[in-house]
């Protein structure tokens, strides 16, 4: 990413001005135009390490890259939506570390003899269930949003790749349609998962409806 899509790297770090060596931001608040930073907590040198495995290399800033691309590719806005790229990167990484922490905690927690009744044991694994999905989705949002306005970096822009015969109404219909269809499926899925989770591992699958459902649960 540092070599082939430097704008994405700068955007996910909210690096507006070129830095050498580059610092890693823990928290950055930008101003309302999204073009300047107002305040941030930074760890020095770490960004250079993430980008090129040494502590001294230069990470180009968004403003410098924007000027460079305008010269190379013509007039236009080559800066992706920084609020999204910045925070999705933090979510992805943060959840990753939380998952690692949860795994370590779990290894420690099961050493106690009565761990099954612990309050934390009911909450932590359940909460951790959603983290991989959210982290993964954030990562994908970062990838796609960070590459805007390109669909193929340097070669094809999104506005050139759209089918010319499609109207916004068409796209809206299909977008809403897919959301409704997948949303309904999610409802059905959650219903089924909850049902089978409550029934426990000994529940048998339903057969004919003329037979009484043989749902043996291990309820306490």
């Amino acid at each position: 990413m540092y070599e082939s899509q430097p704008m994405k790297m700068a955007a996910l770090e909210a690096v507006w001005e070129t830095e050498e060596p580059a610092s890693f931001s823990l928290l950055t608040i930008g101003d309302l135009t999204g073009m300047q930073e107002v305040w941030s907590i930074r760890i020095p040198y770490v960004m250079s390490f993430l980008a090129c495995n040494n502590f001294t290399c230069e990470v180009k800033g968004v403003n410098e890259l924007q000027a460079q691309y305008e010269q190379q590719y013509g007039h236009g806005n080559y800066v992706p939506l920084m609020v999204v790229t910045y925070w999705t990167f933090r979510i992805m990484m943060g959840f990753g570390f939380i998952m690692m922490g949860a795994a370590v905690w779990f290894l420690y927690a099961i050493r106690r003899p009565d761990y099954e009744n612990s309050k934390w044991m009911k909450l932590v694994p359940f909460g951790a269930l959603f983290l991989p999905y959210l982290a993964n989705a954030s990562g994908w949002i970062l990838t796609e949003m960070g590459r805007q306005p390109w669909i193929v970096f340097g070669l094809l822009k999104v506005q050139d790749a759209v089918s010319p015969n499609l109207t916004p109404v068409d796209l809206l219909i299909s977008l809403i349609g897919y959301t409704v269809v997948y949303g309904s499926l999610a409802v059905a899925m959650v219903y089924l998962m909850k049902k089978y989770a409550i029934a426990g591992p000994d529940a048998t699958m339903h057969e004919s409806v003329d037979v009484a459902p043989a749902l043996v649960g291990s309820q306490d």
Partner: protein
Amino acid sequence: MSYEFLQILWFILIAVLWIGFFFLEGFDFGVGMLLPFIGKKDEERRAVINTIGSVWDGNEVWLLTAGGATFAAFPEWYATMFSGFYLAFFLLLVGLIMRGISFEYRSKDANPAWRNRFDWMIAIGSFLAALLLGATFANLARGVPINADKMFTGNLFTLLNPYGLLGGLTTVAIFLLHGANFLGLKLEGELRERVNAFAKKLWIGATVLYLALGVFTYAAGFWARGIVNPGIVPIAAVAVLLATGYFINRKMEGWAFIMVALNIVLTQVTFFSMTFPNVMLSTTNPEWSLTIYNASSSQYTLGVMSIVALTFVPIVLTYQGWTYYIFRKRISTDKKSLVY
């Protein structure tokens, strides 16, 4: 191999994929549409679903392969057709999604209302898919408005013209008949009798619609658009459809199934010969039609694709055929033998 040879080869291969798809998924869609009507009790519906339970997924893959091959071999055809028919294909996808999920979720709850809801979703999804695919192919035969930039200039309602609708309804009817014949081969006992009664009525409807479609096609002059004369193929298709009625009456289910399958294959062969070498005819100006020559990929792409296809397709055909052979036994409604 010359460029032109590769282009013609891939046109034929895509035609084969579509023909295979309609032959295989035809009876899947038919069985799906018949499900709420043939099966009255839960075991009966389970038996009907079990007839296609092991093969419907593999059959749907033929659609994906046909679409994928179109994308790879003739990207401009893919772009114009899939973007142009956007909303129709979106509805088709919704139908296929509904159907696919229903097969999986149906048995997961004992509530009869739950199962009934998903059974109807299978029927409606299959109906939507059959209708829209038929309408798509009818419109490809008729021609659609395409401008000089190879862009489709109509909308969803352009596709729902009388000829397209007739094509869609005919496809639904033929698939219903095809499904009924397949059920006649795979069920036993009372269900088999019920299916036979259905098949007789479905045959009448399918024949009437098919003949209407043929007459419309001939009268509107859609025949000789391309350079290949379909010849006796469409006449043979009508003949086998008429022969089906005889076999249904005599309860010779195997022959009835073969006849309708032949009808589907011959209809598709007619369709592809009618349009060759065009892939999408333009009603705005015939000069702007997409042909296999102006819509294809490069020679290198087609060459690589040919090597890959000729390696893997025989393997796929073998294991799909093997699946059908393994599951060839008739399905009874005996609870002990049903798989949920």
